[in-house]
Structures are given as structure tokens and as C-alpha cells.
């Protein structure tokens, strides 16, 4: 993909950081389980690389706060750190890990990013909201446990989106020779 294309894909992912949470808000009050704002950021990192993912992870939640009031400003710093980590780390892993199996690449990138992102978000929360060394562990664990369902849902959802985009020929196929042989 050209840089122009990556930029515009990143721009729509930023827009989706605003739109997706609104869509989920209207269908059910499960925004906290689905963490819809995570989806475009993870996807942006996977498809466009770390620099674009990082940009999306920082700008996306800020735009969402401005245009919808969600997340509230009090949550914004820790969410920003978390999403920035997602975009950055999915991008780095995805461009460096080539197992010849797209599923494996996606899972490794997603899980690596989601674990690391949650750790830094937990640390950020502890630093912002309560200094003290035991609280650090408490924030990190609580954040981990409460967001576990979200991790599982995203591991199912995001690869499906990637495949749909590949089938619709909107993004290049990652392993063309292999899928042709199947």
C-alpha cells in the first residue's frame, strides 16, 4: 500500500473511533464489554504499520471525546496510552513476524499488543489516580480481569474483519501464493 492510502485508511479508522462506539451505544449497552474504540486502532496498526497505528491510537480517542463526550476527559489519558500502545505494538509485531500463516500473525500481534497495552494502561491509571506501589499491582490486575471478555471478543472479531477486507480486495492479501495453493 502507498503512504497516501495508508494515511486515508488511518483517517477513516480515526473516524471509526468516533462512530463505532456510537453505533454500539445504540444497539446495546455493551460498550464496556466490546470496547468498540479498540477495534479501529488495532486494525489500523495491523494494516498500516506502527507509525499510523500510533497516530490513530492518539488522535482517535481525542476526536471521540470531542465529538461524543466519550470517553470522559478523566479516562482519556490512560485510554490514550493504552490505545497508542495497541496501534504501535500491533504495527511492530505484524511487520516483523511472518509465520506464513495469517491467523498466527494476527493472533500473535493482537495478543501481544493487547497484553502490553493493558499493562501500560494499568500503570498509567495507577500513576494518575493513586501513587503507591501496591496500588500499581491492584490497578493492573483489576484492569486485566475486567477487560478479559473484551480480549476474547476482539480475537474473534478482528481477523474476520481483516479477511473480509482481503476478500473485498480493499487491502493486499498477506500471503498470496499460499492462499492460491489452498
Amino acid at each position, binding site marked *: 500500500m502507498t503512504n497516501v492510502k495508508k494515511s486515508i485508511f488511518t483517517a477513516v479508522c480515526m473516524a471509526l473511533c468516533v462512530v463505532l462506539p456510537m453505533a454500539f451505544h445504540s444497539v446495546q449497552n455493551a460498550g464496556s464489554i466490546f470496547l468498540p474504540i479498540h477495534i479501529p486502532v488495532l486494525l489500523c496498526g495491523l494494516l498500516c504499520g506502527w507509525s499510523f497505528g500510533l497516530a490513530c491510537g492518539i488522535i482517535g480517542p481525542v476526536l471521540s471525546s470531542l465529538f461524543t463526550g466519550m470517553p470522559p476527559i478523566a479516562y482519556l489519558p490512560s485510554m490514550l496510552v493504552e490505545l497508542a500502545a495497541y496501534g504501535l505494538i500491533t504495527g511492530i509485531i505484524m511487520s516483523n513476524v511472518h509465520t506464513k500463516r495469517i491467523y498466527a500473525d494476527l493472533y500473535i500481534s493482537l495478543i501481544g499488543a493487547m497484553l502490553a497495552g493493558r499493562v501500560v494502561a494499568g500503570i498509567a491509571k495507577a500513576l494518575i489516580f493513586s501513587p503507591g506501589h501496591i496500588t500499581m499491582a491492584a490497578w493492573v490486575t483489576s484492569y486485566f480481569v475486567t477487560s478479559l471478555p473484551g480480549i476474547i471478543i476482539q480475537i474473534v472479531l478482528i481477523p474476520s474483519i481483516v*479477511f*473480509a477486507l482481503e*476478500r*473485498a*480486495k480493499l487491502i493486499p492479501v498477506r500471503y498470496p501464493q499460499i492462499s492460491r495453493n489452498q
Partner: protein
Amino acid sequence: MPVELDQVSYTYAPGTVFEAAALDRVTVSIEDGEFVGIMGHTGCGKSTMIQLIAGLLVPSSGKVLLDGCDINDGGYRRGELRKRVGIVFQYPEYQLFESTVEKDVAFGLKHLALNSAEVRSRVAWALETVGLNYGEICRESSLGLSGGEKRKVAIAGVLAMKPQILILDEPIAGLDPVARDSFMQLLDRLHNGGTTIIIVSHNADILGDFTRRILVLNKGSLVMDGAVKDVFSDVAQMEALNLDVSRPRKIAHLLGQRGVAIPQDIVRYEELLTALTHLKKSGGLP
């Protein structure tokens, strides 16, 4: 199974800066097996009206009745409504998402209690009905098809539910004349099979050729409702509403203004041709 709107009003986003009154006390009744066209200037509330009929919006006031039952009554089963009323939006292909055509067409059927053989036969029927070859296409990825095929697959997904009422919101906008015609032929076949068809369109020629009755909306109110020839006979009012009448009707109207004694209830080209031939024989043409 008649559809009735009883004094239905709808306001978007009430109490916000986006508040917009889209429909104002509309009362209308559509009988089983009718083929109805809805016309009106952009923003006059056509889409709002059909989404109210499909139960996708809930009226701000008034009632939507299906077979005499209020569909927004707490006791009305949503599943029943979804089965009976199908709706095709302007770009139906945008709703495709499954990995194969077969799965996409069968998506709505999951919610009906059907066994797998029934599901397969419905899917096959729906695909053949829209003019696709079931055997060839069912394993393909619906997302990789051409634009026209995608649209057909999406429409098949609605038809597979065998809705008794089929609603279409500007389905032919952007189609080329050949595709448009074959699409309307499809609707005509469904209509002959007993399906009630409600179609929103700006294309007066097409509506004139296929529908029997036309509703005209203006700024949220129902301003005209009648047989096609009656609605189109009032060229002045249609012009005042910024709407077209069918071209044959327009020609007859212009000839009439020039003093040619041609009937003013002409809607289609065949009728125009017959009338002109007749006039020529009787020496009425200059």
C-alpha cells in the same frame, strides 16, 4: 394483509438541535397484493415512512397496523414482523458480510425455524429468482463479486425470507436501463405471485409502467394518493411539487395544450401510441 398508517407522525432527535419533523399525521391504507409507488422531493419523508412500515422506526404519535394489529404494541412479535415485511435499501450490497454467497443469502433464515434442506431450497430459489445460478455462485465469496452481482445477492437475501410485503427504497437509482428493466420485471413477477410491493422512486416512467397506485409526499404530509393515471393527470400540481410525470403523459399534456384532442389519462408509451394512431386514423392530427 393490509398495511395501515393511522395519523402517523415522526420526529427525528426530538429535544435536540437536530430535531426534524419528518412525517406529519399520515393516514393511508395499502391492501394485499397492491403495487404502490411513493414519490416526493428529497427530504419529504419517504424513507421515514417506509421505515415506519417496516417497524425500524417507532412513530412519535399514531399507529402502524399490520393486519389490524399495532406492530409497536408490546405484545407484537418482532420476529413475525421481520418475516412478513422485507425491506431493500438503496445500496443493499453494502449489507453483505459473510464468507460465501450461500451464507449471506441464508442470514435472515437463521431466525426462522427451518431445517437445512428448507434453507438450501429457499436460498436456491432466491438466487434463481434474481437471475443468478445457484450451483455456480453459492460457494463464491460475496465480497469478491461484481457490483451488479453483489446487489442481486443482497436482494436475494431479502427475498429468501419470502416476505408478503416487499418495500424498496430507491432501488433503481444508479442502475443502467437494462439492469433497471430486468429489476422491475423481477418485481412484477413477485407482484403477480401475490407479494405486496411498495417502491420509492423518482423515476415517473418506471412507476407509470409498473405500479397501479401512487402516493405523493410533500414536506412530511401525504398530498396525493390515487391510481397512477389520476395522480399523473394533475400535471400542474405535480409540477408545483417539483415532480415529474411520466414522459408519455407529459407529451399528451403538451399536445393537449396545443389543442390536440388526445385523452389526458395516458400514462405509458403503448397508450400514447394507441391514442396517436387512433387520432391519425380519425384525422385528428394536424
